[in-house]
């Protein structure tokens, strides 16, 4: 069964400092990995995904994530945090069963990022 862990409920960082939001996963095969962000009273917005290829994935709003197969991790990073980055971040994984239509995503519990001015 697929699972996602986000070990930190809350991450606090000062504006201008680098940020990291951690994610580890468990799947039976090769994973598809995603990061989404949720602002208050809003749906989820797609940030980036890893499918294959380069382990460093670049996404929206200056975010990037590093896929590490040996550590089964997919940490979200940004070199310089903005106050406007404060939101709830979700890591998600999808397994790749063959002949399977669509995307049954499994989401982590979320990490609340607070960027302090």
């Amino acid at each position: 069964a697929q699972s996602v862990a986000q070990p930190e409920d809350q991450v606090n960082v000062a504006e201008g400092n680098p940020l990291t939001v951690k994610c580890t996963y468990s799947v039976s095969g090769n994973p598809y990995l995603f990061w989404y962000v949720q602002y208050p009273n809003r749906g989820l917005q797609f940030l980036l995904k890893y499918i294959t290829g380069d382990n460093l994935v670049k996404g929206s709003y200056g975010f990037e994530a590093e896929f590490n197969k040996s550590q089964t991790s997919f940490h979200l990073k940004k070199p310089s945090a903005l106050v406007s980055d404060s939101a709830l971040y979700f890591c998600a994984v999808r397994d790749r069963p063959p002949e399977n239509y669509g995307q049954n995503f499994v989401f982590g519990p979320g990490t609340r990022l607070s960027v302090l001015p």
Partner: protein
Amino acid sequence: DAGVTQSPTHLIKTRGQQVTLRCSPKSGHDTVSWYQQALGQGPQFIFQYYEEEERQRGNFPDRFSGHQFPNYSSELNVNALLLGDSALYLCASSLGTSGSADTQYFGPGTRLTVL
């Protein structure tokens, strides 16, 4: 290019009632998934529709049912509402290509409150 839309935005029901939530997918998408997001938790997969059929289902009781129409829009129905059904219900659309890693795009959600 219209994104995923959901209606209504908010809904208040009482225990035992039935509710229908609606979703229109992003232009060009043919697959719709529904998720339940309880307060303080990550979204939980309810089910997914493609070609007007339920293709996958999460661990939700039969009180949760759905439908997809020929124009790819979808409805989520919940019968015999319980207090625990209070949550944000998210609709996500994607291209339902087998084995692909197409991104799911989410709507703003419907906030359901059961009293």
